[in-house]
């Protein structure tokens, strides 16, 4: 089976969908001739032409708005926002329009738009190239929110997102584009070819939306994570020496609450990890849902390990990043029941 990194997996998903479905078009800044600043769309314009792999003006609001119009007119656009940090000019179009079109027209109109964007820090990108705004979008009713943690899932989830008739916001953690990252930035980078999820089928396949995956079975504590933090959590579990069950959520909306709660009810403990800021972050939703469903099984308060509630600082990104040490400390704390 081919080895792919996450950039190649995203590229392959787009390639497969452009090849299968003439309604699929992709669009964004620098994505056509140039192949994208992260190379996710390399070679696709040459293969499918300028009318299906569309370079756009620098206008995130314009990109999403015209994608909606294309969707209404029968196309299935996949829009790239160059960095998740740049999505806010498109916020109104996503929140007020894309998310609610089906609802406000009682199902007569909808737009099957997928909005892709790289997110997360760890690349010295400072506050405008490091954000993880997924929690802002999970709070909006009517859009699905996805964040893969590896190349196999990235391709399968992106194919599912494009095929889905509802709008999807698809986050790509850029720190793991080229290899899994366990949170220790001193170590040399590891390529995806060393990881089983770096094996990616060349053709069409899907990973279903709304299905979490247990990436490490365990008995004593459940760790809920997604994106880059799945790998960081694995390192933290090794560091803490606990028998943790790690759940990779993969899709945040709709959430696979069954897998989450079955695990927490089994282990009786829960640590929630995300890179995004803590206050009103997606972890708050997870914590509340787990408490509602698993209260009588819990043996310790639920812990959240997240980015601090500040903008992402350029010089201190590793003090900001919720690394293995902080997660490990939380694991030990829930094991001690404190």
């Amino acid at each position, binding site marked *: 089976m081919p080895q792919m990194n996450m950039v190649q997996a995203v590229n392959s998903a787009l390639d497969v969908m452009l090849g299968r479905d003439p309604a699929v078009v992709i669009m964004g800044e620098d994505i056509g001739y140039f192949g994208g600043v992260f190379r996710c769309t390399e070679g696709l314009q040459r293969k499918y032409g300028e009318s299906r792999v569309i370079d756009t003006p620098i206008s995130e609001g314009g990109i999403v708005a015209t994608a909606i119009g294309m969707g209404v007119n029968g196309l299935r656009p996949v829009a790239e926002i160059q960095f998740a940090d740049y999505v806010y000019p498109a916020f109104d179009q996503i929140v007020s329009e894309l998310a609610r079109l089906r609802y406000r027209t009682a199902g007569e109109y909808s737009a099957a738009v997928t909005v892709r964007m790289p997110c997360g820090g760890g690349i010295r990108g400072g506050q405008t190239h490091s954000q993880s705004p997924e929690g802002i979008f999970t709070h909006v009713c009517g859009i699905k929110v996805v964040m893969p943690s590896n190349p196999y899932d990235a391709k399968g989830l992106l194919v599912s997102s494009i095929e889905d008739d509802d709008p999807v916001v698809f986050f790509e953690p850029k720190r793991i584009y080229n290899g899994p990252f366990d949170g220790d930035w001193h170590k040399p980078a590891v390529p995806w070819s060393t990881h089983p999820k770096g094996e990616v089928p060349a053709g069409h396949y899907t990973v279903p939306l709304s299905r979490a995956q247990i990436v490490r079975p365990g008995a004593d504590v459940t760790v809920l994570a997604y994106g880059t933090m799945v790998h960081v959590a694995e390192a933290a579990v090794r560091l803490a020496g606990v028998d943790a069950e790690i759940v990779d959520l993969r899709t945040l909306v709709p959430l696979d609450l069954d897998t989450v709660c079955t695990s927490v009810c089994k282990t009786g403990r829960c640590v929630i990890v995300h890179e995004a800021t803590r206050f009103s972050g997606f972890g708050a939703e997870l914590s509340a849902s787990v408490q509602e469903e698993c209260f009588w099984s819990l043996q310790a308060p639920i812990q959240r390990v997240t980015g601090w509630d500040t903008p992402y600082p350029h010089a201190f990104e590793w003090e*900001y990043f919720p690394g293995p040490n902080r997660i490990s400390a939380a694991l030990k704390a829930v094991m001690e029941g404190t």
Partner: protein
Amino acid sequence: MATRASRLHVPHPPARPGDRPNFDYLKLSPAGSVSRPEITAPLDSTAHLAQELVRVIDDEGHALGPWNPHLDAADLQVGLRHMVLTRSFDERMQRIQRQGRISFYMKSTGEEAVSIAAAMALRPDDMLFPSYRTQGLYIARGRSLVDLMCQCLSNTHDMCKGRQMPVMYHWRSGNIFSISGNLATQFPQAVGWAMAAAIKGEDRLAASWLGEGSTAEADFHQALTFAAVYQAPVILNVVNNQWAISTFQGFAGGEHRTFAARGPGYGIPGIRVDGNDFLAVYAVTQWAAERARRGTGPTLIEHVTYRAGAHSTSDDPSRYRPKEEWQSFPLGDPIKRLERHLIALGEWSAERQERLEKELDAHVGECWKESMRYGTLTEGPSLDPATMFEDVFKEMPAHLARQRRELKSLLGG
């Protein structure tokens, strides 16, 4: 009846890698040929300014026509010095980024006149809302290179306290606003600042800069709408350097109309100026500033120039444009053109130029040595990471104080 199906028009740059550079699409006017309307002239009698190209310095280095600002030789030498210093600073910082001492850099090479001539034509108390390629504003206003370098180093002397990527400077006492990493946001903010000046009855003005690619953002259109509605004392500068990363100016709408021509559509005079002509940039800025101060309202200026370097140190332009394109750019190099003008005036020489370049290269080297003493990203001394919790709010709320304590205990403090 025969009908023709619609077809998506996709703009194409005139040359890609391997092609011969081609700037035939740029409409040029001879130096000195464009008339200069009175600053009180009605909008319609300024219409030609948005189509033609205001130029003062001709190919032989002579200053021609009604836009010649007749600056003293001493002022011209100061302008030249600022431009040479900016270029030397940029070259040094780019090399330092390649050595891994800073994380990122953006040069302004080829565009120095746009910032420096404008800053010199304005008053020091005028408020500037820069883009990320207008470091010349800082240099023209006299900010020390050590301060700029320390920002890029995120060290103990960094004005941003390690919070911003390199080049995202700010300078409150120098009346230069903070640089955002997001595009065009500063344009309508400058209009708001100018509206406040009008509300308060001050004669200060605001000026802002963005790239032609950023004119596609809604912020640009909001800026022009508000500026026109309130006749705000603001100068809105579009730096048309032909390239927005890999996307040529046609993708921002430059194929069909000049960027200056956006102005009249909103009721604002638009001027298209040779951005590599120090005298022309100075003169049009002066014209726009006089209009603003007299209460005659905003002006949109399109500076036609060329981004000689990569978009940033993360970019590789050889993938999308001919390598030698800058050498073919018909408006040349702004430094060489001002140098030639000074030589034509008998106020400069090749030897003095060489001496100046050496002197400023040495100065940049000294500043770098001093900056390094305040630390680098990877080598101390460094700021206390717990400072990241400051300035989120004026007073630190309890939840941040708690998080700061947690970080301090993690760091063993």
